[in-house]
């Protein structure tokens, strides 16, 4: 392209359309003479449009390209340089003044219009992004409420094999299952979804964790059972996990992740596709955790369940204080989806302080006997190949 740095002050970079040229077009150096506009191409060939017959147009991709055309449009000289139009007004005094003035006015108007449009679009995008986020957050709850709980159960069933596969095999012991089930039932009878049938599985893994799948399956890892100091602490963990299920946090994650698509499917009553998609997202949500607000919400509901069941909710706090913080240094905890233990403990203490006073009793569960039974059950189980 013609380097504008090499051009004289009265020369401008541009181009020309003409059937006389090979290919019908070429880049050119535009010059404003006394009688008209000339365009000189690389090999020295020159084309000319006289001011007296010049038809001016403005347009092009930028909206400010000036076209100087012969009446039969056999030659079109064009230039996008900002200096060109003012220079043309000066050079073609008398002949093109009116047309140039009209063009300058039109160009100025278009520039303002373009700036307004650009700013308008940017502001609209920002509003849509921010507004969309809040609509999605509130819309997620409404959308989830419209979905029957049976969908959660189907999603949980579909996700169970892959979640289980991440940790290890199930440790089967009928007595342990019965005791844990009884503990869960004693908590759940006070929850908003007391008809949900919870199922508990103990998984062979040294990790200190428990997790709930949508629909009511709760996985407790052996590492957690080895770590909790009292049955009350175990009840605190279970109360927290039960709350994730009854508050349908998995489905909320699903809706937020897939957003509008799921909302539309729910409105149209088509929930079949949710199961397949939900299984994949539920696995991810179960393994990677919930949002910070969902974790704190589960703590809040868990405290209420503990209190209603007659178990001391302070044991949720002692459990957090004993728990080694997940690999997230305190300063970065706000980045993680798991609020740091210190924050959770403080939040729980505040919640407990707001509860009416009552007498608490520990859950009827022998932790030591449970651990012994699990130890025996582990040894008796066939080793996986």
């Amino acid at each position, binding site marked *: 392209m013609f380097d504008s740095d090499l051009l004289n002050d009265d020369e401008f970079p541009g181009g020309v*359309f003409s059937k006389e040229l090979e290919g019908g077009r070429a880049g050119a150096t535009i010059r404003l003479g006394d009688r008209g506009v000339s365009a000189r191409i690389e090999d020295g060939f020159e084309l000319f449009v006289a001011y007296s017959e010049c038809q001016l147009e403005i347009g092009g*991709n930028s909206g400010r390209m000036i076209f100087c055309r012969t009446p039969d449009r056999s030659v079109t000289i064009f230039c996008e340089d900002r200096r060109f139009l003012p220079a043309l007004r000066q050079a073609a005094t008398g002949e093109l003044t009116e047309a140039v003035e009209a063009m300058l006015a039109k160009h100025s108007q278009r520039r303002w219009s373009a700036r307004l449009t650009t700013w308008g*679009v940017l502001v609209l995008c920002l509003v849509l992004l921010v507004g969309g986020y809040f609509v999605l957050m509130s819309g997620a709850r409404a959308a989830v409420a419209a979905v029957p709980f049976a969908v959660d159960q189907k999603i949980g069933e579909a996700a169970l094999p892959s979640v289980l596969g991440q940790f290890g095999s199930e440790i089967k012991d009928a007595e342990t299952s019965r005791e844990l089930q009884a503990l869960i039932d004693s908590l759940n009878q006070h929850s908003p979804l007391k008809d949900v049938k919870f199922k508990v599985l103990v998984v062979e893994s040294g990790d200190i964790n428990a997790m709930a799948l949508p629909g009511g399956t709760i996985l407790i890892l052996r590492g957690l059972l080895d770590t909790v100091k009292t049955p009350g602490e175990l009840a605190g963990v279970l109360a927290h996990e039960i709350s994730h299920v009854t508050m349908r946090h998995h489905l909320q994650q699903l809706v937020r992740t897939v957003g509008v698509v799921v909302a539309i499917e729910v409105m149209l009553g088509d929930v079949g596709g949710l199961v397949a998609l939900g299984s994949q997202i539920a696995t991810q949500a179960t393994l990677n955790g919930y949002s910070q607000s969902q974790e704190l919400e589960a703590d809040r509901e868990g405290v209420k369940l503990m209190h209603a069941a007659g178990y001391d909710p302070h044991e949720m706090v002692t459990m957090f204080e004993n728990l080694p913080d997940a690999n997230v240094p305190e300063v970065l905890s706000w980045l993680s989806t798991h609020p740091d233990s210190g924050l959770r403990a403080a939040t729980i203490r505040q919640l407990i302080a707001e509860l009416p006073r009552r007498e608490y009793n520990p859950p009827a569960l022998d932790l030591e006997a449970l651990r012994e039974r699990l130890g025996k059950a582990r040894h008796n189980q066939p080793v996986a190949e």
Partner: protein
Amino acid sequence: MEAEIRNRPAFANIRVTLKQGDRLIAESGAMASMSSTVEMSTRFNGGFFSGVLRRVFGGESLFINEFTTRSSGEIVLTQPTPGDIECIELKGNTLYLQPGAFIACDPTVSLGMGWAGFASFIGGEGLFRLKVSGQGRVWFGAYGGIFAREIEGEYVVDSGHLIAYEPSIHLRAGMAGGIFSSFFGGEGLVTRVTGPGRIYMQSRSIEGLAAWTNAHLW
């Protein structure tokens, strides 16, 4: 340097014969095969930051390959989509190419990045485009066949079908008809181009293929 576009129009590719001193610039990943006497060097596409811009917004590679030879050799260049390849000779003029269209050029051609505007974005043509200018040959490809048209006045091009246009062409996004016919007639948004100038169109659009495929997956 001689170049020939072969196997047109559906599976076009470019066979380039280089002699000592010849240089060819090509999009990263365009090389399908080459003689062992041809050397390839890779560099950032016009510098790191503009290369990044081209990659993120222009659909072009962060890198550009330069092919040379100390004796003679042959290179075959191709593109990812089935379709035609066109060669145009720039004579100091400029052409804007849609993301991903560029394949190769003579070293005398300048490559740049340009803001395509919201009209282009709404019309499905991207926010940015590649600008080729200077003197020399440029090869660009398309999905489907390529056809050029001289525009005088206004012309309508469906979204996804415009692959290249001159700077003298004005783009405006619009609807194919009224609201009802635009959306229920299946055309949706279109690009209204105003001349004078030349545009290049492709006979197929990737978005159309994707939509058709998705509809048949369930």
